[in-house]
């Protein structure tokens, strides 16, 4: 940490992500404009040159994600950001990066869908983010910040995790997080040794040539690679993060992530003031999903209500975690609608009363 008193910044969630990336030593940004995340490429178009890096506004999201692949192969900390339809276009390269074990950070500021949808907040990309999204068997580490400070912190950490596992890492936010302003305290974070020089492409001076690829044609080679990847995804389970709020004595635990978790937290506070025993469980890593702490809550006999800004996606993971113990109710806010804490009262009370 710096010895100076940290200077608070009053910034948007999108900007917090950009500052987090810069603090993490990001040297290349490749992107394509799409609402509601344009603040990120806009600030990075200046910041990358100031830190001696580079910025390219690509011809498409497809190209941006492939530029990311190239920079990652060259061992550089690099970032792209987009929003839902743009993330669909990036999936091809993400699959290749996962298959080639390349570290890169991708930001998705989720908007309403399917299709062109709207530019408002939503959580409809949960499946796409946590199930791979592109072709083949792979997973991303998916981090879901709920505040601007967390957006800053998790983006910074995302780079370390990407290199630790040599895997793409996604920051999944939404239009609420991207567009709201909050004070954050910037910090220097950990200085992690990437060890990129042990595998990245630099030209084969003084060593054997290196090849970064996802094509495995020799008999058994692809099966080995898939086993290797699956073992890595198992190791990633060490990274699970979550927040438990007022869950200890709760009869009902609300499961929610990101912006919706914040709104649910307000609802929990209001109901607690009325003496209702409700709490909030907020997964911060959406993949790997924090199964075990959720199961522990189930073993204490609690009921569950999953609230999402979609038609029901994370609730599947909640149910998978709880499957032998108990079920979870579900309340979905339709993409295209903006909830406030009072909207959650009725479904919460209904679940609480069973």
């Amino acid at each position: 940490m710096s010895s100076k008193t940290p200077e608070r910044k009053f910034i948007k969630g999108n900007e917090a992500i950009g500052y987090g990336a810069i603090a993490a030593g990001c040297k290349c940004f490749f992107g394509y404009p799409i609402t509601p995340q344009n603040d990120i490429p806009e600030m990075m178009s200046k910041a990358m040159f100031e830190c001696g890096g580079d910025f390219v506004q690509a011809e498409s999201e497809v190209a941006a994600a492939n530029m990311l692949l190239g920079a990652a192969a060259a061992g550089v900390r690099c970032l792209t950001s987009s929003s839902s339809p743009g993330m669909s276009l990036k999936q091809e390269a993400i699959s290749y990066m996962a298959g080639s074990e390349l570290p890169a950070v991708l930001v998705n500021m989720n908007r309403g869908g399917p299709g062109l949808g709207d530019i408002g907040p939503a959580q409809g990309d949960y499946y796409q983010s946590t199930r791979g999204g592109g072709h083949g068997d792979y997973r991303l580490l998916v981090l879901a910040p709920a505040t601007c400070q967390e957006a800053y912190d998790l983006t910074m950490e995302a780079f370390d995790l990407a290199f630790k596992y040599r895997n793409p890492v996604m920051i999944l936010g939404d239009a609420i997080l991207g567009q709201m302003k909050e004070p954050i305290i910037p910090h220097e974070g950990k200085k992690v040794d990437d060890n990129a020089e042990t595998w990245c492409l630099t030209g084969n001076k003084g060593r054997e040539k290196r090849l970064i690829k996802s094509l495995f044609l020799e008999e058994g080679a692809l099966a080995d690679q898939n086993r290797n990847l699956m073992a890595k995804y198992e190791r990633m389970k060490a990274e699970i993060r979550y927040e438990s709020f007022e869950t200890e004595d709760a009869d009902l635990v609300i499961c929610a992530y990101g912006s919706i978790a914040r709104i649910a937290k307000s609802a929990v506070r209001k109901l607690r003031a009325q003496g209702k025993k409700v709490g909030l469980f907020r997964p911060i890593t959406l993949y790997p999903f924090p199964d075990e702490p959720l199961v522990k809550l189930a073993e204490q006999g609690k009921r569950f209500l999953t609230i999402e800004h979609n038609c029901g996606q994370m609730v599947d993971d909640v149910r998978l975690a709880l499957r032998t113990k108990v079920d979870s109710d579900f309340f979905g806010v339709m993409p295209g609608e903006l909830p406030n804490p009072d909207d959650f009262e009725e479904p919460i009370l209904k679940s609480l009363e069973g």
Partner: protein
Amino acid sequence: MAEEKLVFEPSEVLIDRPTHYCPGCQHGTAHRIVAEVIDELGLAENTIAIGSIGCSVFLYNYINVDAVEAPHGRAPAVATGVKRARPDKIVFSYQGDGDLASIGMAEIMHAANRGENITVIFVNNTVYGMTGGQMAPTTMIGQATTTCPGGRCEEREGMPIKMSEIIGMLGGVTYCERVAVNNVKNINKAKKAVKKAFQCQVDGNGFSFVEFVATCPTNWKMTPIAANERVEEELLPYFPLGVYADKLAEKEGK
């Protein structure tokens, strides 16, 4: 007995192993030219190759330089990322016609237009080779493929795309030439073009592009000799050899 004189040595960068290419395929010749140029310019330890999709993806098995594999058509975007991350490295992509002129049209046009300081080797054999001989954007009118069995038809499928002409007119392109390797004279010219293209990048002069008009005897269903004759008689009149952009020569007033 006349004294023997060594006139030809194997390229150091070219790996000594049998290739997977069919008899008469000219990828091998194109590989050798690229390898010799890398040797001659002393770039072997400073170069990163971008493999693409199709028969030529295995370029990285034959050339002894660091390499990364790109998704179909995206090699110029991957090359952009590598070069922006490591501007001091020599970065080249090696792409076929389906890869570059069809699915990757956007990536090649924009990388060229941005004037990325990279080199693109484009091998145009008028057909999708690895996938089994389907129609490419460069397939000739009347040429039968597995997806235009009656022959490519202008009304239905449009005219074969002339990439060097298109690339040559983009503002960011420093050097663009179309070559062939159907005879010794053209092979020598092709090597000069590739050398110029890499030198262009070494000197920091921007985007360089070399199109090889090449054979695919297997998918053309021809003998290697007949395929080579087809290049001369049918392809070169439509895909004329020559320089389509040379800003270096313009600068020097040539």
